[in-house]
């Protein structure tokens, strides 16, 4: 970094810039489970020796560890992709009530257009639902600035602060100014049951404070420089946020703008005043009509986007049609689809499954690509861990069929374990294959408990999957290398015909590992 800081500017992605800003803000604990496009945040933070960074088992665990650190006095950060936040929703909703001691920032990267995701949920609704403030940068440089604001806001208002990015910001690089790290003084850790023990009586009192906090945050939203008015010629005015702002500036340099850097709670007075200052008002936002619905609820007349624009990512050339209120013209050009690497061990596992003509309950990872022709050997993908639980459900719903569940090693540790315990407990029979390539391959090869290495590649306690599966209640646990195709197929065929719950660990390391 020496060379870059001499210049005081570096070319950083949104993820890297956010990590840099958090480091400069004195961040001390950071937790995440990998997920595109958020993965590089923790990878960058792990490069700073002052920060206690970890790959957590899953997002719920990550959120709780980070929040715990914040409630004990350390500035902390949790990062995830949009669907990862679903896994952490349980602690998140009540964290709004407990608040924090030191700053706690929840970073969520949405993926409009689903570059690498199973849905395109709009996380802005979570801020409304959880009654917590949300900041939304429009560029990597803003990501660095906003995360600092988020820490200050979190401490001032005693609340976690959600910082929402999208793929296009997380994976865009731009010039980012590098600053020094400043560590604020740690507040003293004290027992405070009324604040941190959320039994009904305490929680009722905290809920009162949450509603009061929301009122104070609304006042802040009116004043903050994050919600910026740019005066133009007054003919057309845009209320916008995130990367949409950049596309608009490209198309309408002379228009007026109300750029919302704080997307929740809303700055109602500012919105009304801005609406009065322009002849025509248009809300431009990716995905759901989050701003639009609110502006309409204020009784302000606004040009709404056609519902077709709620789907997919915006691009600069789509903007004129959107602003004109027209429907989206899909320009579908066939892209080369991703596929499993030629030497990938998953090919052999799926070849064996194809041979026995199995209905394969799938999961999330590289191996999801086995659903594509010519393999077409994976038949479901819902969420993390559902390969194990869909297996059980399918067996109940379609008895007599040859049903096999598959799940990756990292995904199994993330949320497959509970499903396996459930299967054993409820006397489910059948075969679960753990496709163990000894890494979190899809997101670029991150460590997890079963690799025995930390985020910094240091040795640590290694989770032994075969022991774990036996403890969960599997009757048989076989460990086989799928590249030994005959042996693998023989074991698989034997197990599917048995009246037992079997786990076959298909173990062969990913070729991309530690290149």
């Amino acid at each position: 970094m020496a060379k870059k800081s001499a210049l005081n500017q570096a070319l950083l992605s949104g993820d890297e810039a956010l990590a840099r800003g958090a480091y400069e803000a004195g961040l001390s604990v950071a937790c995440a489970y990998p997920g595109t496009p958020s993965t590089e945040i923790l990878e960058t933070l792990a490069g700073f020796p002052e920060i206690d960074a970890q790959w957590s088992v899953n997002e719920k665990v990550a959120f709780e560890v980070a929040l715990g650190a914040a409630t004990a006095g350390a500035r902390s950060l949790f990062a995830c992709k949009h669907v990862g936040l679903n896994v952490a929703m349980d602690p998140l909703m009540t964290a709004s009530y407990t608040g924090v001691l030191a700053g706690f920032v929840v970073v969520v990267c949405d993926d409009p257009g689903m570059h690498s995701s199973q849905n395109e949920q709009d996380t802005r609704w979570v801020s409304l639902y959880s009654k917590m403030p949300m900041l939304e940068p429009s560029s990597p440089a803003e990501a660095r600035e906003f995360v600092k604001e988020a820490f200050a806001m979190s401490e001032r208002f005693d609340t976690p602060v959600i910082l929402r990015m999208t793929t296009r910001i997380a994976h865009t690089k731009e010039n980012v100014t590098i600053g020094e790290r400043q560590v604020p003084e740690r507040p003293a850790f004290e027992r405070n049951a009324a604040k941190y023990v959320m039994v009904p009586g305490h929680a009722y009192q905290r809920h009162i404070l949450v509603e009061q906090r929301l009122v104070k945050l609304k006042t802040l939203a009116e004043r903050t420089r994050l919600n910026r008015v740019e005066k133009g010629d007054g003919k057309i005015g845009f209320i916008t946020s995130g990367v949409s702002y950049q596309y608009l500036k490209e198309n309408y340099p002379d228009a007026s703008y109300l750029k919302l850097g704080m997307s929740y709670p809303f700055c109602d007075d500012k919105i009304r005043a801005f609406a009065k200052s322009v002849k025509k008002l248009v809300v431009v936002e990716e995905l759901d009509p989050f701003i639009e619905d609110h502006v309409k609820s204020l009784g302000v007349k606004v040009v709404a986007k056609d519902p077709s624009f709620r789907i997919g990512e915006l691009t600069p050339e789509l903007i004129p049609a959107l602003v004109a209120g027209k429907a989206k013209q899909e320009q579908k050009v066939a892209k080369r689809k991703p596929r499993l690497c030629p030497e990938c061990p998953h090919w052999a596992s799926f070849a064996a499954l194809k041979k026995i003509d199995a209905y394969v309950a799938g999961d999330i990872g590289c191996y999801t690509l086995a659903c594509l022709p010519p393999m077409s050997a994976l038949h479901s993908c819902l969420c993390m861990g559902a390969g194990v639980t869909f297996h059980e459900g399918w067996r109940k719903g379609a008895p007599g069929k040859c049903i096999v569940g598959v799940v990756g090693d990292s995904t199994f540790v993330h949320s497959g374990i509970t499903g396996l315990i459930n299967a054993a407990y409820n006397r489910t029979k059948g075969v679960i294959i753990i496709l163990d390539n000894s890494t979190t391959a899809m997101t670029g090869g991150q460590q997890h408990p079963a690799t025995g290495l930390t985020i910094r590649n240091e040795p640590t306690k290694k989770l032994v999957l075969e022991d774990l599966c036996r403890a969960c209640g599997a009757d048989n646990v076989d460990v086989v290398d799928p590249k030994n195709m005959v042996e693998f197929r023989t074991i698989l065929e034997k197990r599917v015909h048995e009246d037992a719950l079997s786990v076959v660990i298909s173990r062969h390391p990913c070729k991309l590992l530690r290149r």
Partner: protein
Amino acid sequence: MKDKVYSITFGGIGGQGVLKASEICSWAALFAGYHVKKSEVHGMAQRGGSVESHVRFGKRVYSPLVPTGGADFLLCFHREEQPRLSAFLKKDGVDLTEYVEKAGQAIENPRGLNTCLVGVLSARLPIQQEHWMKAIETVFKNKGVEENKKIFLDGRKMGQS
């Protein structure tokens, strides 16, 4: 012209060094004092799918994406990707894809193709040679800096002729 934003679309498939090429270009523009935005998509792309990276630089850049019909230059490393990506080119934009074959013949190590093509591109951009050299040092760190500088200069010569 002073406020002109230069837009370049890089494309190819996973493993061809598309992202590295756009990275060199972006650092060079940064060292030359421009505001740069570089857009890319990771994740599934590394599994052999289409890879696309947009670089834009100038006094002030807004959109990280090159709009359709907005690229000054197209640098496509894979022939099958070229028809799709050519939609990005401006009417008077320059398609440098024809250099892929030429560069492939000129270099000894096929892994240097991306650096060579950046050299070709460099001949047409308002960025001085020293900034390109510094960019190569930054991107390759200690692995193959000298080799890549040489390949880059060969490409630059090719682009100038």
